[in-house]
């Protein structure tokens, strides 16, 4: 399991530089740049970023599949075509946000589901999905 909510990534550099024993210094010493940090790549606003698990099939066309891990940033202002987490009837759902004729609607990437106007009571955008992460190998 990716445990990128934990701090170990920040320890990487310390481990590197303190490991050099007496003797020959590593020729790579001057070129150490730190390690790549998935946190840094996936999370721009830590205080506003939450994880969620996608359930269901209807966002296939958007590239989101059942069981995918979603990175959700609540600080971003949603724009048309964003994939968002929306509150619908008290439940958190994944939708595509659109603005076809000047009105905001939530759509599923599946024509059998009707669009839902965003000004419906009890309907609001909870956060913007910035990444989805799919596991391809489970061992």
């Amino acid at each position, binding site marked *: 399991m990716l445990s990128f909510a934990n701090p170990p990534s920040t320890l990487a550099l310390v481990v590197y530089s303190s490991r050099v024993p007496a003797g020959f210094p590593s020729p790579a010493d001057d070129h150490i740049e730190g390690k790549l940090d998935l946190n840094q790549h996936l999370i721009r606003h830590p*205080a506003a970023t939450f994880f969620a698990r996608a359930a*269901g099939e209807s966002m296939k066309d958007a590239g989101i599949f059942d069981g995918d891990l979603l990175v959700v940033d609540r600080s971003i202002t949603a724009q048309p075509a964003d994939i968002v987490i929306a509150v619908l009837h008290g439940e958190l759902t994944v939708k595509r946000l659109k603005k076809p004729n000047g009105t905001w609607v939530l759509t599923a990437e599946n024509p059998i589901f009707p669009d839902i106007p965003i000004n419906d009571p009890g309907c609001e955008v909870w956060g913007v999905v910035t990444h989805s992460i799919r596991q391809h190998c489970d061992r």
Partner: protein
Amino acid sequence: MPTFGLVDCNNFYASCERVFQPSLIGRPIVVLSNNDGCVVARSQEAKALGIVMGVPLFKIRDIVELHDVVVRSSNYALYGDLSERVMSILAASAPQHEVYSIDECFLDLDRLPVKDLTGWCHALRRRTKRWTGIPVSIGLGATKTLSKIANKLAKTSAKADGVIDLANHPEWIVAALGKTPVGDVWGIGRRWSAMLNERGITSALELRNAQDGWVRQRMGIVGLRTVHELRGIPCHELETQPSPKKTTCCSRTFGHAIADKDQVRNAIISFAERTAEKIRNSGQVCGSMQVFITTDPFDTSAPQHSASASTTFMTPTADSRALVAAAIGILERFWRDGFSWRKAGVMLLDLSPAGDIQPTLFTNHVASNGLMQAVDRINDRFGRGTIGLGLSAKDAEWRMRQEQLSPHYTTRWQDIPRVRMSEQVPSGAEA
């Protein structure tokens, strides 16, 4: 001009429960203490139903059923995580801040280069709400005490919309203090409040106008400071460097009274382990330990007793083995058969930074904290209580009852919220 801000999360625990369960918005919510005993937090709707702070759940069963009140065990993993997020947003916004409690934060806004402070506060409220889902109120004043009062009014006044600035509106202060019962003033506890009421001082305004000499005589220098703060003279500065904790405690009220010594012992062992973990986490060691047990003060039919004793460590330590051994030793000293115990706890005192240990002439063990570090890491990764000394029973009867616990949405992978992709459109959704 000094300007203090107090940011306070509205009904914090109830608000946390709503972030990932929006269906709870608008419904009355109560959050229970450890062990699901008493109400420790309420949503606005629950307050409106007349549910008071601290009431045991069994006393409000009828209201809960009649009004379909949502009952939750306290989920400190969730509240702690959301609190950290709120605090980090506040810290990034103001020049200086002081985290005062899990849901309150003082800000120092003296040197903030903005003209419209009220507008700035409204923007900060909106940002906190949008980023974390937690609503906050903000009060500003020339002193911490005044900012507290401003905050309370900001919460209740519909016109304020969550922000009141008494620092730049001194003309509001008299009305604000007049509306504030003296018992609501920061630092005025129940005893002072009763004493002041008896002498006809019922509002913050009347306290502000009391004579220095009289206040000093009745309430000492601490009380006088409060009065000066009400007059706009700052006596309490922002504490930006929190002084490291001097004590830490782990205690529980048992689900039911326990007479069996082994069970109480198990509880004590586990509290000792938990406190040890706490101080290791903050890089501290303790110089002494206190253990206490008490019977149920409300059960008038049973014999009452409470016992407490302490011990001092020759070398300050944070090693679970040493602390558990000490706790068992203390319990052996004061244990008495024939009582039904309702509460027990372990307190660590004389905490100091782990680096400052003075080795003594007679110390024979070199502090080896490698083992303890390994234990902490395992528990960190796989959940509290995964590994410990082979002494405390996992399924003990005293263990915390948490029957209404919501998921740890932000701190456990298996608990992160599941979001549906709308296979089922609930009926009526098309309308």
